[in-house]
């Protein structure tokens, strides 16, 4: 995957500039949209002081747990003044057009005075509210057929990414495949080569797991200087879904693995005929072929009708539109595991098969380009995940990493899954640097960017490109404006 073409400085700058531009275009719209976290007149409201309770300067950690604080801060971004609402309607629909994934309906002055839309008018498949406008935005590569789009993490609640907002990366467009004729071939070092129809695949006993997938290029613009402004830009190549399918071990048992087989080539049926080599131990341990995502069939852009899930491995290994699996004694050394997805160090050597995604966390709210409207209570919230297992703890710092306090973790805390953390904070109106740092169940501590660069060096403006899992810093200035900074 040539996430960025690291071939020449000029070309890199051009491409990074195009990404900055894409983000800017998005922000220009979002700032006018009262439903957006980036709405420029509608800052993140601090909670109004509860009667009889001190408003400012009180560490909420010292206070008895106040449920109202949590509920109120949840609503902060979605809520807005009446005036804000009106703007939202026009902003979302200047010409009676609904945002993607929604249907435009006229808004009555009082919804209690007139019947609503009849059941079934949606044709039997629901849409999101016309007031919800968040979308994935695409990196401005020269061809939209090999490109990627990022998840708007700042709008997310809970841990599941809506299927329509799951990040994408394609190398030859989104394939359209009829499941009625689709076949998966399994051959190579097997006793009986076989082909399976989708009906065959679905007859096997199935499993479901809630797992994150992260592109190892997530954050590649951020190695040498803060470049993108929003968390969607810095971290939007990670998403979480519930995936359902058949364990690869079941399929491999069905064909009978010959002794000496050590690697699997998994091949996609899209126009890039994407391939990656997967170690057979991993395949037997927990890989599966998924046909389900969040309770329905997997989305076309996620590999319909069948996708490899390799829990905790870099996103590119999760081959979409799977049509073939070949077993071998050696890795195939495909383009994606040589030319791309190898981490070039300053020594000139490149790390190959760096498959597992290390533990990482990020504060999604407040995050870059949002504005706090004044001192008071805010809930800091974000996501943490690790390709090696469960998240054990997340600490939050509001002073740039000098002091840390534990954040609350929202259950269920699942292995190789995003975990939401929350941290109550009273902003005193002074400059603050917000950071989160996670530890996973193996004891791995998320590094600062400085620590990571010590190990990986900076071979060019985008370093070794892949596997940037450093602590993210958001600066809050005295006006409450939040921006992406490097602080370590």
């Amino acid at each position, binding site marked *: 995957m040539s996430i960025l073409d690291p071939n020449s400085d000029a070309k890199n700058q051009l491409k990074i500039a195009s990404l900055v531009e894409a983000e800017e275009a998005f922000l220009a719209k979002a700032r006018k949209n009262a439903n957006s976290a980036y709405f420029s007149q509608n800052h993140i409201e601090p909670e109004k002081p509860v009667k009889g309770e001190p408003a400012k300067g009180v560490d909420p950690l010292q206070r008895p747990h106040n449920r109202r604080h949590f509920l109120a801060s949840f609503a902060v971004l979605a809520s807005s003044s009446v005036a804000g609402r009106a703007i939202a309607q026009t902003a979302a629909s200047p010409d009676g057009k609904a945002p993607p994934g929604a249907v435009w309906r006229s808004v009555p002055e009082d919804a209690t005075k007139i019947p609503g839309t009849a059941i079934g008018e949606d044709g039997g498949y629901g849409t999101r509210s016309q007031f919800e406008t968040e979308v994935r935005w695409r990196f401005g590569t020269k061809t939209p057929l090999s490109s990627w789009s990022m998840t708007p993490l700042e709008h997310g609640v809970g841990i599941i990414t809506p299927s329509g907002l799951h990040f994408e990366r394609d190398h030859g467009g989104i394939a359209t495949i009829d499941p009625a004729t689709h076949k998966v071939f399994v051959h190579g070092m097997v006793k009986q080569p076989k082909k399976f129809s989708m009906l065959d695949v679905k007859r096997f006993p199935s499993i479901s797991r809630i797992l994150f997938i992260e592109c190892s290029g997530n954050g590649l613009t951020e190695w040498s200087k803060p470049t993108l402004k929003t968390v969607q830009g810095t971290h939007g190549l990670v998403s979480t879904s519930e995936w359902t399918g058949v364990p690869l071990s079941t399929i491999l048992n069905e064909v009978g693995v010959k002794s000496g087989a050590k690697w699997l080539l998994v091949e996609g049926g899209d126009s890039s005929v994407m391939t990656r080599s997967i170690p057979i131990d991993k395949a037997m341990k927990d890989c599966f072929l998924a046909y389900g995502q969040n309770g329905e069939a997997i989305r076309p852009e996620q590999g319909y009708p069948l996708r490899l899930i390799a829990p905790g491995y870099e996103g590119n290994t999760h081959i979409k539109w799977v049509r073939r699996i070949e077993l071998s004694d050696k890795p195939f050394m495909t383009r994606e595991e040589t030319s791309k997805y190898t981490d070039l160090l300053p020594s000139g050597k490149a790390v*190959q098969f760096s498959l597992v995604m290390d533990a990482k966390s990020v504060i999604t709210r407040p995050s870059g380009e949002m504005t706090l409207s004044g001192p008071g209570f805010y809930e800091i919230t974000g996501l943490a995940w690790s390709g090696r297992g469960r998240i054990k703890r997340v600490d939050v710092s509001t002073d740039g990493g000098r002091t840390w306090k534990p954040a609350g973790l929202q259950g269920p805390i699942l292995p190789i899954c995003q975990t939401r953390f929350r941290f109550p904070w009273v902003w005193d109106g002074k400059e603050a640097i917000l950071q989160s740092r996670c530890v996973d169940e193996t004891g791995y501590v998320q590094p600062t960017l400085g620590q990571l660069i010590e190990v990986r060096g900076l071979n060019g403006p985008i*370093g070794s490109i892949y596997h940037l899992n450093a602590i993210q810093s958001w600066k809050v200035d005295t006006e409450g404006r939040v921006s992406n900074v490097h602080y370590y």
Partner: protein
Amino acid sequence: MFTTTKLFLQVTACGALFALNTYAVSADPTRYGFGEPASANDLQDFVSSLPDGRDLPAGSGTISKGKQVYDEKCASCHGQKLEGDIGDRLIGGRGTLVNNDPKKAPVKTVESYWPYATTLFDYIKRAMPFYTPGSLTNDEVYSVTGYILSEAKILNGDEPITAKSLSKVAMPNRNGFIPDHRPDHFKPADKHPRLR
């Protein structure tokens, strides 16, 4: 706990029943018997390659034919001089990989970075030309692979380009890759942080 156990028993019972059903169609009791045997015919159009040349299809090409293929079908996106445009730059960059300068980018190309020539055949065969992938004959792919390698000053001469010859090409960065040494062990940082 009791209900979970009960549920588990029910599920196992179902599984056993299900498995019993399939015993009838599968000779092997550990298998379900779903799917059909795949014939050599079914598999003949698939291409993959191992660095030692196994799995590559029959065929052969020449560098001069490869230049024709390149000019006609690749140059529009990769440039007349293989310098890159919509598609990646394909040659140059030797000596740029050792570098610790955030201002200077290493130049990673087939010539400077790719460890195996077989990968080049494999990738072109499956994914190029970008808008009409899979449209080249094996001989054309061998030829254009040879041409790129010759422009990269890795190959020359009139030797036919085949699966065997590609497996023997000594790519400049053949030994440039090391295994994954992670996880790294980081301690919570104790230095005095500052804005950078």
